[in-house]
Structures are given as structure tokens and as C-alpha cells.
């Protein structure tokens, strides 16, 4: 029974193997061509093979070389930060920059353990003004300021 001495490397190695296999599978849909006349599938296939090789070596080494354990995973920062940006992207063209900004600041601030709602709200309003000034007026980007402006 092999002892996994470096869990991070094992997971990474398996991940790379997976990516390599996926690349070869997807690339098999494209014409391979020959060395002299490379088709669209040629380079991806080479890369896929290299990936699988490297992934295998990394995974095998993880059984021999000691490494740090897998760190914990805190859900709140990841979900809140990414979620708030995602929502920003979805609503900004309908709600306009000002409202979306305030929403983004308020939501993303909640990811921090030091969250203070009033402070976040003020920051949101100030940043909304700054954003409009710099991006819409200064750089002339085409983003609506208020709802329904586009």
C-alpha cells in the first residue's frame, strides 16, 4: 500500500493527467495532419501527451517525496468574492454602473471577517462616483450610468 507523502502533488498530478487526456480526446476531433503539414489537432495532441507524462511523474513522485498537507478550504471568501463579481457582470447593463457598483462593494465586503455594513455602504457610494468619473466620463467607456439608460 503506497503512502501518499505529498497530497498536494498527487492531486496536482492527477489534475494534469486529466487535463492531458481531455485535450487529446477533444483534439481527436480535429484533423491531425502530418509533421510536414500540421493540422489543427497536431499541436494539442503533442501537448496533451506531454501533460499526461508530466502529470504521471508528479503523481508518482508524490508517493516518495514528502510535501505539505492539503490546506483547508474556506467557502465564504471564494463564493462571496466570485459571486459578487459574477452578479455585477450580469446586472451592470440593466441596472447601470452606479447601482451595480454599490451592490458589488456591499456584497464583496461581506467576504471579510471585518465587515462593517455602514462603512461598506459609504465606500460603495464614493466608489460609484469615482467609477463614473474615471471610466465613463474620463475614459469614455460605454457603460450606462443609471437603469435603462442603454
Amino acid at each position, binding site marked *: 500500500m503506497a503512502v501518499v507523502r505529498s497530497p498536494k*502533488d498527487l*492531486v*496536482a498530478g492527477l489534475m*494534469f493527467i486529466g*487535463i492531458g487526456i481531455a*485535450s487529446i480526446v*477533444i*483534439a481527436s476531433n*480535429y*484533423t491531425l495532419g*502530418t*509533421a*510536414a*503539414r*500540421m493540422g*489543427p489537432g*497536431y*499541436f*494539442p495532441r503533442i*501537448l*496533451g501527451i506531454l*501533460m499526461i507524462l*508530466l502529470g504521471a*511523474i*508528479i503523481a508518482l513522485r508524490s508517493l516518495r517525496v514528502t510535501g*505539505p498537507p*492539503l*490546506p483547508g*478550504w*474556506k467557502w465564504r*471568501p*471564494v463564493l462571496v*468574492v*466570485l459571486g*459578487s*463579481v*459574477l452578479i*455585477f*457582470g450580469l446586472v*451592470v*447593463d440593466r441596472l447601470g454602473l452606479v447601482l451595480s*457598483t454599490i451592490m*458589488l*462593494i456591499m456584497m*464583496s*465586503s461581506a*467576504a*471579510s471577517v*471585518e465587515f*462593517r455594513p455602514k*462603512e461598506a455602504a459609504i*465606500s460603495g457610494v464614493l*466608489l460609484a462616483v469615482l*467609477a463614473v468619473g474615471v*471610466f465613463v466620463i474620463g*475614459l*469614455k*467607456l*460605454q*457603460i450606462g450610468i443609471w437603469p435603462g439608460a442603454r
Partner: protein
Amino acid sequence: MDLLSHLALGFGVALTPVNLVYALIGALLGTLIGVLPGIGPVATIAMLLPTTYALQPVSALIMLAGIYYGAQYGGSTTSILINMPGESSSVVTCLDGHQMARKGQAGAALTISALGSFFAGTFATVLVACVAVPLSELALKFGPAEYFSLMVLGLIGAVVLASGSLLKAIAMIILGLLLGIVGTDVNSGVARFAFGVPELTDGIGVVTVAMGLFGFAEIITNLESTEKREMVAAKIKGFWLTKDQFKKAWPAVLRGTGLGSVLGVLPGGGAMLSSFASYTLEKKISAHPEEFGKGAIQGVAGPESANNAGAQTSFIPLLTLGIPENAVMALMVGAMTIHNIQPGPQVMTSNPALFWGLIASMWVGNLMLVVLNLPLIGMWIKLLQVPYRILYPAILLFCAIGVYSINNTSVDIMLTVLFGLIGVIFVKLDCEPAPLLLGFVLGPMMEENLRRALLLSRGDPFVFLTRPISLGMLIAAVLLVLVIVLPNVRRTREVAFQED
């Protein structure tokens, strides 16, 4: 002499009011993000790339370059004053710089930092100007096989000289190459890895990848750790150096400048490697090595000059050969491509105003930084006191607007968010994102050169070995790998990166 007329052209471009303003903006922004922890030049440049669309190419590059070397100046301020490196290249400055501050010599440390950086910046700019013409002429003789091997050497060199697991870094490069393939194949018109999503047929944008992997992932990782930062700022009592300090410091400045200039050109080199190497050198050749770690001025003067020289000379491979050798340069390639400039040796002849203007403005920027930094220290200190909980939503906002403004579609934001998630996974698994960015930017070029080389050789893969320059580069790449794999070197490398 040709060089003088080139420089004259360059300064003519760099000293126009518009470009002076952009150089200033870049330098100030760079110092700002250098001072602020949690955001670095890569994320900032990625964030500003979309906003440079409306600018002239020269102005855009001047500003972005200013951010990179400005960050070197800013990072040293926090290292000295609050023992926290704002930038990875300022880590060594913490060791002796903060100790000097504790002894009441903060002003001297800051001054020698700024002056050493300026000297190094001037020297490096002249070096770039001198080396540019011969190197570009050499590169014009390269065929596709040489270019491919050069890119292989560059990529291997970049990971060999960086910290972390070599195997995983190479795997990240390959992953980057694969991501670069997403999109329509130029030669056959086939949409590859697009999964039927129309927005992917043009490929993934470099801003998207960089922002997600470097910006979002860093913010999330920062939020996960709940350690409080000690905000004990040291008092500054006057800025002048004593004669004795100056005598000890200036040889270190010279050595740091020389070392940084050489290391900056090497693939994977740049500011960080140069500063580490300089500290090690100073400690080794010092008559009183026990002083190091307790406030030896050479421990500040050397690395600070080295990191500035390294940052500037890392532009050489980009401007002369078109090969980026670290993540920041990879983004500069992205910036040039956005402005329809194909990076490579022909940039010098087809776009001399841009080329020499950029070089000249690096010196102008350095001058601005040394003049502005010391008086503005008070302001930087105040800014450091803004709590992170207020700072990071603002950073997120600028990133989000920047990404959205590329195409005004939410698909770009979704992709960036996805890369943010991927970036966090990579951090957890100790996989470095910088090699991925390098591979991503070079991927299409590598495939194209591989294809052309094989086409010309009628399918003979040994063409890379039969052509002498190409063979030389591949041998160098193998040597680099072997050198790192040897146990002695590996141990030294790990020790060097444990110094903080």
C-alpha cells in the same frame, strides 16, 4: 553616432506633454501598488490593459512600463518602514532595511534605496539602448526553428530560475500553451476548444486570464488568512546619509546594478531574482557578514539597485526578440498585440519612435520617481493605513469594470470568475500561475513557428538539432534543467528562497 540619434528620437517622443503625463501616472500608480500589499504589477497592468485601448500605443506602453519599475520603488518603502514587502522583489530589503529603521536610520535607508534605484535605472536604460540594435540585427537572422527553440529556452529558463517545483511549473506552461490554443486556428479556420461558445472562437483574452489568476485569486487568498498586519511604523529623522554610510553603500550600488543588469536579461530573471542574488553576494563578500540582518546599509543599497536594474533590463528580450521572460513582460506582449504591434526584432525598424520612445521614457520615469518618492513618503504611509476590507472591494470593482469594458458582455466576467476559481485551486496545490501566463502568451507563436519549421524541413523533426543556433539554444535549455536537478544547486535554491 547612431545611438545618439536614436536616443534623440526617443527623448523627443518621451518628453512630449502627453507622454510625460502618462509616464507620471504609470510611475505614481506603480509606487502606489508597490506600497499596497495584496496587489502587484501583474494584476494592475492586467486591470489597465483594457483602458489603454483608446491611447496611442507609445503612451500605453510608457504607462504600463512605469507601473512595473514604479512598483520596485514603492515596495522598498513598506519594507523599510513596516517590515512588510509590498512587492516580492522587496523581500530582502526588509531584512536590513527595517533594522536600519529601528535604529533611527529609516531616512538613510529610504534615500539610498531611491538613489541606488535611480543610478541602476539610468545604467540599465543606457544598456538597453546600446544592446538593442545588435541584438535585433542578430534576431532578424533567426528562422522559425531558431524562434521555436528560443521560446523553449525562454520558457524553461523562466521556470528554472523561479522558485517552486520545476515539474509542476513546466506542466503549468503546457497548460498555458493549451489555453492559448482556444480559438480559431489561423491556418485551417477550425475553431478549437471552443465548445460551441461563440465568445470563445476568438480565444480567451490575456486580461481575463491574468485578472482571474493573479487578481481575484490573490484577493481571495488574502481574505482566507486572518492574520493581522503589524502597523508599527518607524519614525523618520532626516534623509541625509553620513559620509561613512555613503562610503559603504556606493560599491554595493555598483555591484547590485551590474548583477541586476545581467540577471534581468536572463529568462525568468527580473527584479526579484536580482535582489535575492545581490543580497547573497553582499553578505558573502562583506568584511563583516555578522552585520547583515542587523542594519547593514549594503544589504539595502545592493538589492535595491539590483531590482531596479533587473526590472528594466528584463525589457531587453521583449523589445529585441519579442520573447517575454516573466509575467509582466507577458502582459506587455498582450498590450502590444492589442495595439496591433507584432512583438519581435522588427519593431525597432518598423516603429522606431515607439521603441526608442519607450526606452527614453524609462529613464524619465526613474527621474520622476526619485524626485517624487521621498517627499511623498508621508502620503504613502497614510495610504498604508487604509484597511484591507475597504481596499479589496475597490480593487474588485476596477477589475470588474475593466474586464466588462472589453466587449460589454457578461461572458468575459464569467470567464474571469472561472479563472479566479482556478487560480485559488492552483494556489492550494502550490502550482505557480506565472508560467501559465507565459505559456499562454507564447502558445500561438510557438505553434506557428513549429508549423513553419516543419513545413520548411518537409516534416523532418531533427531540423531543430541540425541548425546550429537552434541546437545551441536547446542544449542550453537542457543544461539549465540539469543544473537545477543536481542536488547541491537545488538545496541552495531552496535556501535562497527561505531567506525571509
